[in-house]
Each structure stands twice: as structure tokens, then as C-alpha cells.
């Protein structure tokens, strides 16, 4: 079991001493790049970034549950849907087509995450006593039940055509499109995408940091003990059931937060988006990134969530892709599904630690060549 979970891999003592500074520098550089992006990229790339960060937050929850606690869930898209619809319903002023409470967006977002957590707690009597694959299939049921509820609640979902999501706002600052035409900040366009980029960046970095702190502390050790040998974990005094339920609760709250971001980024949500294939996408993200690794989940989410849009943009240049509907070749959406499906299979066969494992190999190689003392 351990071989599949890179997080259990403890670096050699001397590597441990040298690594933090390099890793911290790399992280700072990435953060700086993240802050600079709105000044470098246009709205298209910013929008992809928003999709990627929304996916990343939910994927962090998935990697916590599967990679750290060793619990397989195919129900992630259900909790994402709770977050997305929770936010939309609570924040939207109700109208003729769809209901809503018209709460301030910040309150709605927080309540939506709490709602997703509550859904996770409601399911935990089942989640805590099932193991491995049984849990995977039981959570599959959750997705279908959720789809059924959404299909039969037109006041919540606005019917088959979906409903639009109210823009996010804090105090007087709105994160929606500017009604009064484009605004500029330091000679750079300062519109919806730019503002949302920073909002999403703050949320994603906080979600990432919190997960890392959990993984390094007591809960992380307890989850890994349960994952690797549940019975042993119980014997050495880990409250197994409580920690399993805790992992499920946290992961559903991460999914709910991811759902809120998802709704804000897409501006319009349709029930069928939140089906089984979305759950499988989250699974693909964490497997591609490397199970249990927070940074891997972010990288995998960027890959899987960004791929369709990027392929679509370059469909005319890439061979074998059709640039418009009806043209010969594979459509970008289909090509994206092929790519991530194949990536999952190939990585599991040849590099089970995913992108995180590949990165670790690259880091280690030059060190190995260095002459010994």
C-alpha cells in the first residue's frame, strides 16, 4: 500500500536539511507569478485560471480523503453541487423562475460550505463503517440521488437550462462585470476576471496551506496510519471512526468551497454538470498530481480543468482536432477526456506517485551525481 502513497515517503536526513529552503523559494516564486498573472495574461487565460483554481480547491479535499485517509469516494461531485447550488440559492434574490434568499454573497458562501459539511456529516454513518470499494460504490449512489433531487427541484436549479449565479461581492466591492464599461488599474484592464483572480488565489492558497498544516500535524499522521493499516491504527490508540468521519467532513467542505468557486467562475450552472463524470475528473486530478500531495492536487486540477479550453483554443493548429462542430477530427472536449483517461492509466502503471513523483525524480537526479564526501 505504501508504494502508492508518496506522502509516506520520508526524505533522507541530509535531503531534509537542504530541501526546505529550495522548496520555500520555489513556493514564493510561484506565489509571485500568481500575483503577476493578471498583468501578463488576457481574460481567456485568466478564466482558465479561475476554472483551475475552483477545481483545485475541490481536488484538495479529494486528495485529503483518498490520498491521506485512503477512502475512495465517487461522490465528490455531489458535495460540489451542494456548494454551488447552496451559494446560488442563498445569494440570489428569488424571481419568477427560481427561488432564492438574497443573502449577502459572503454569508451565502460561508453557509454553502457549512451546508456541504452538514451533508458530509449526514452521510458519515455510512462512510465511517464502509471500507474501500464498498464506500466508492455507495458514494456513487449519493451522486445519483443528488441528480434526482436537482432534476425535481426547478425552483432551486431554474430547470434544465440552469440558472445564473449572482456575482460575488465583499462590502462595496463587486466581483462581477462592470456595468459602467471597463476600468483600468495601473494601465491594465481591471475587470471581473482580474478581480476574481486575486480572490480565487487567496482562497486557493489558504485552502492549500490549511491542508498542508493538517497533513503535517496530528490528523495527518492519524489518517496515514488508518490508510496503511486500519487495525494497527486502532490498536495504537487512533480513534479510527472519528478520524474517518473527520476526513469525510473536511473533504466535503473542501468540495463545497470548490463548488462555490465553480459557480462564481462559470456564472451559470446546470444540474447535469454535477454527474458521475465530474467525480471521476476529480479522481483523475488527484491521481495525475500524485495521491495525498497537496501541490499535486493543484497541478492535476490545473491540467484536467484547463485542458478542454486550451485544446479548444488551439484546435486549428493541433493535428487531428476539429476546429468547429461538424468539421473532421476529434472535438476538443473528446480529446481532453482521452488525454486525462490515458494519463491516469499510464501514470498508475509507470509512475504511481503522479506528477509529484516525477518532480521528485527530477529534483533528485542532480544530487545523485554529486561526488560523495
Amino acid at each position, binding site marked *: *500500500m505504501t*508504494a*502508492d502513497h508518496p506522502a509516506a515517503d520520508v526524505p533522507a536526513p541530509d535531503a531534509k536539511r537542504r530541501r526546505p529552503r529550495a522548496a520555500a523559494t520555489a513556493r514564493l516564486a510561484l506565489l509571485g507569478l500568481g500575483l503577476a498573472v493578471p498583468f501578463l495574461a488576457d481574460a481567456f487565460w485568466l478564466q482558465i485560471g479561475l476554472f483551475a483554481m475552483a477545481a483545485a480547491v475541490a481536488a484538495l479535499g479529494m486528495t485529503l480523503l*483518498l490520498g491521506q485517509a*485512503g477512502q*475512495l469516494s465517487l461522490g465528490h461531485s455531489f458535495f460540489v453541487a451542494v456548494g454551488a447550488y447552496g451559494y446560488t440559492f442563498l445569494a440570489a434574490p428569488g424571481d419568477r423562475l427560481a427561488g432564492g434568499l438574497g443573502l449577502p454573497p459572503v454569508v451565502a458562501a460561508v453557509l454553502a460550505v457549512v451546508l456541504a459539511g452538514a451533508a458530509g456529516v449526514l452521510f458519515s*454513518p*455510512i462512510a465511517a*463503517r*464502509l*471500507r*474501500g*470499494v*464498498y464506500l*466508492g*460504490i*455507495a458514494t*456513487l*449512489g*449519493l451522486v*445519483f*440521488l443528488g*441528480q*434526482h*433531487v436537482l*432534476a*425535481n427541484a426547478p425552483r432551486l436549479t431554474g430547470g434544465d437550462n440552469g440558472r445564473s449565479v449572482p456575482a460575488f461581492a465583499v462590502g462595496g466591492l463587486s466581483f462581477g462585470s462592470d456595468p459602467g464599461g471597463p476600468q483600468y488599474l495601473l494601465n491594465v484592464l481591471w475587470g471581473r476576471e482580474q478581480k476574481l483572480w486575486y480572490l480565487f488565489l487567496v482562497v486557493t492558497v489558504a485552502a492549500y496551506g490549511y491542508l498542508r498544516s493538517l497533513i503535517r500535524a496530528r490528523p495527518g499522521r492519524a489518517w496515514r496510519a488508518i490508510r496503511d493499516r486500519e*487495525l494497527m491504527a486502532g*490498536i495504537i490508540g487512533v480513534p479510527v471512526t472519528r478520524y474517518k468521519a473527520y476526513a469525510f467532513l473536511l473533504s466535503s467542505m473542501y468540495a463545497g468551497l470548490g463548488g462555490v468557486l465553480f459557480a462564481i467562475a462559470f456564472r451559470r450552472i446546470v444540474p447535469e454538470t454535477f454527474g*458521475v*463524470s465530474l467525480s*471521476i475528473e476529480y*479522481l*483523475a486530478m488527484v*491521481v495525475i498530481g500524485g495521491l495525498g500531495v497537496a501541490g499535486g492536487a493543484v497541478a492535476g486540477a490545473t491540467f484536467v480543468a484547463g485542458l478542454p479550453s486550451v485544446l479548444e483554443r488551439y484546435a486549428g493548429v493541433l493535428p487531428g482536432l476539429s476546429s468547429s462542430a461538424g468539421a473532421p477530427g*476529434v*472535438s476538443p472536449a*473528446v480529446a481532453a*477526456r*482521452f488525454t*486525462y*483517461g*490515458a*494519463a*491516469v*492509466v499510464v501514470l*498508475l*502503471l509507470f509512475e*504511481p506517485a503522479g506528477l509529484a513523483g516525477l518532480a521528485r525524480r527530477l529534483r533528485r537526479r542532480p544530487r545523485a551525481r554529486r561526488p560523495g564526501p
Partner: protein
Amino acid sequence: MTLFAQLVIGGLSLGSVYALLALGFVVIYKSSGVVNFAHPALLMIGAYVIARLSAGALPFAVALLAGVVAAGVAALVAERLLVRRMSGRSVIAVTIATLGVDVIVETEIVRRIGIDAYVPTHDPWGDRLVHLGAVVVPQSRIAALLVCAGFIAGFLLWQRRSRWGVAMRAVAEDAPTAGLMGVRRGTVSALAWTLAGVLAAVAGLFIIAFPSPGLQPMTASVALRAFPAAIIGGLDSVAGAIVGGAVVGLAEVLAQGYASNLTFLGTGFAGVLPYLVMVLVLLVRPSGLFGVRELHRV
């Protein structure tokens, strides 16, 4: 009462199809320890080949044979290239790998179905009906019940009587000991996967036969309902797969038939009922109705 009889026959017929799927699922689990999430993909491959070939000049029997062979070979390839190479890794890793295979295969078949929305089937039953007194049942449903029941009976007999059937049961019982006794575990695993592919193709034929218009993208989600069937019965129980299939089929068809009395549960409730039943069963028995409870030895 007539309606009830009709629904029970229809439910048992659908249940036997689910049972066939769940049986393949359980056989794979028991002989190679893998939960095969690519099962809907195997069904789609078989059904696609049958539907496409039977539309041409080929006789139906040839198309059926080709579909069964295609699904069996696909399962064998998956076993050789994926499952065998990942032996010794965690069950969850192999399970996710089969999910990856499922994504690739289903994407390709849905792409091939394309804008037609469905591929019509040309089976010998068509949309003809059988009248048993006042009870009216489509011929294809009767055929499904008979053929699937025949396959299940044949499988049970084969498992009891034949050399390889006994070998398969031995591996399921205690794999290392079976290996020491000279049972070739690799061959047993390959055989189980091929068999599951064949059963999935047969089940696929009856899922796309009348009253369904043909092979649709959503056929895969119908095939997914074999998972609750297998779980309700218990993942490691052949008898459980059959019972689970019948439960799911009956529940679904009855809920569909009495939908007008169940409107308070929402439209399309029949489709989620299998999952609801599964969750309820798991609450009471976490290993399914007939599954062996996991015991821990310290």
C-alpha cells in the same frame, strides 16, 4: 393485477440482465481481487459491435458472436496489460486504473454513436409482443429472461462441475493455497475476465433491445446499476449477485410501472431506486446480504 403480473415479468427479466452483469463483476472480484469499474465499457463494446454489425448484411447470430468475442477480447486485454502488471498494488489503485480505461472506451463509443443519438438494434425479436392471457409482454423481455437465466444456470453448473470452474472456486476460497496445489492463478484470472466480458456483451444485447431504441450514450448509466446489484448481494457472493440483480430489476420496473402513484417522489425516481436500496442495505449490512463479513485477526 394484470399490470402487476406484467411488471413482475418485466422486473425479473431486467433483473436477470443485471444479474448477468453483476455476476461478471463478482467473478472478476473473486478471482483477481479487482473491482472492475470498466464493466460498463465492456458492455458498451459488445453492444456497439452487435448493433453496428447486425444493421449490415450479416445475419444476427454472426453479429452477436462478434460482439461477444469483442467484449471478451477487450476484457482479456485489460487483464493482461493492466491488471496483471499492477498485481500487488493497492485495490484502490487498480480500481482507479479501470476507471481510466472506462473513461477512454466510453468517450470513444459515445463519439462513434455521434449525432445520431442512438444506434438501432436489429435483433430477431423486434417490437413484437407476447400475449399470455391478459398479460402482454414484449418478446425481447421474455428472450432476455430465458437467455440470461440459461447463462446463469450454465455458469453455476460449469463452476461446480468443470475443472476450470473448480479451479476458479479454489482461487476465490484461498488463492495462495490454490496456487500451491498447482492451480494456475494467472490463467484463472484471465479466464474470469474473459468470461465477464462475454456475460457483459450478452447483457448489453438485452439492454439495447426493445423497449430501448438502441445503443445510446446513456446505456452506460443503465449498466452502472449493476454495481448496486452486486453490492446489495455482497461483492464476493455469486448467489448474492443473482439475488441483487433480481432485487434491483424488480424495484426499478415496479417503481416505473406505478410511477403515477409515486409522483411525490419526483420524476425519474425508478432510476435512483437501485442506489437508494443499496444505501439502505449497506446501513444494515455493510458487506451486503450474502457477503462475507471481513474478519480481523490480530
